[in-house]
């Protein structure tokens, strides 16, 4: 009797010791989640370039026509349109957010199974996706009217005269829409990674 109880106790404690050794060993391999986190980081870098490029292209859009009348000179700059001012400020904000979210993305690569960074990123990404979409779409609406005009409200298509200005603003809008698409991809990936843990 006594020998059986003394045999039992050391076996249990060695099992516990083994369990503790397993717990402090190396973390589980990342697998596809690590791959997704790396793609997320690379896409974020691309989105930084797109957003900041959009902001700078719009901010430098300025064209003065070579002819003028006695009273004023024909000039168009992003300053003349409140929507474009909103666009520049918002795209700069979105670019800054993306730069600041790069460390969180790196944390997500190092620890693919941690949920905190992913949850934080998906929530902030959604908010800034909305902001980026709002500014891109409102600028796109103004660029559309500048290209096509509107007969019913008698708005002239200024692109016929200010060709360079029009080209630059259109390019800025396209670049910001690229950033929006990248945001959508980032959120889809974060949702997939959250859904399987």
């Amino acid at each position, binding site marked *: 009797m006594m020998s059986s109880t003394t045999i039992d106790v050391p076996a249990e404690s060695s*099992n*516990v010791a083994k*369990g503790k050794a397993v717990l402090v060993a190396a973390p589980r391999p990342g697998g596809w989640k690590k791959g997704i986190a790396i793609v997320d980081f690379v896409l974020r870098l691309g989105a930084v370039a797109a957003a900041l490029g959009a902001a700078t292209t719009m901010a430098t859009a300025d064209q003065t026509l070579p002819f003028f009348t006695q009273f004023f000179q024909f*000039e*168009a700059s992003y300053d*003349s*349109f*409140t*929507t474009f001012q909103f666009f520049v400020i918002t795209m700069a904000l979105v670019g800054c957010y993306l730069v600041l979210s790069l460390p969180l993305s790196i944390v997500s690569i190092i620890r693919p199974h941690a*949920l905190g960074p*992913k*949850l934080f990123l*998906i*929530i902030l990404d*959604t*908010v800034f*996706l*909305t902001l980026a*979409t*709002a*500014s*891109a*779409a*409102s*600028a*796109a*609406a*103004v660029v*559309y*009217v*500048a290209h096509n005009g*509107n007969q*019913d*409200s*008698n*708005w*002239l298509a*200024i692109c016929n005269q200010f060709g360079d200005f029009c080209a630059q603003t259109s390019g800025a809008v396209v670049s910001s829409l690229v950033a*929006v698409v990248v945001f*959508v991809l980032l*959120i*889809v990936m*974060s*949702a*997939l990674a*959250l*859904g*399987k*843990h």
Partner: protein
Amino acid sequence: MKSSPAELISEAKSSTQNSKMKRAVSVLDFILRLIAVVATLASAIAMGTTDESLPFFTQFIRFRAEYDDLPTLRLFVVASAFASGYLILSLPLSILHITRSSARRTRVILIILDMVMLTSLTAASSAAAAIVYLAHKGNAKANWFAFCQQYDSFCERISGSLIGSFIAIPLFIMLILFSALVLSKR
């Protein structure tokens, strides 16, 4: 076998707390969806039924304004109606999430679809807001006349209909947030 009875009991308690939290969040999700349906539907109808004719006319032209005249406002009506239809169709899925708190794949699908609708609704309503702003203020440099000065009730209608969609957009963000929160709990 390795964990003691006390640990098993505490795990069971936290899992019931978790499932209660998930259920509460799912109910809130359903309620917010209902509110968003009303908001987007009201937006689409308010913009879609705009029609104003000015009481004077010349020999050749009748001065009339409706949402069809501006392509951006047409896009807004379509996108609002689309968002409203999607929200109505996603109500059964939301009810499913209330009854089955452990459904993961459907929640992921719901997050992705919600985000796509959020993007399209935000884009359409921001574009419409930019046009409405131009209608109110005009633009001196581009020589775009602010037609709100003539078409009063048309202008009020198109400005007011934007409010509904700008209520629905934060609701969409919260829906995505809730789904992500529930997904991140074991």
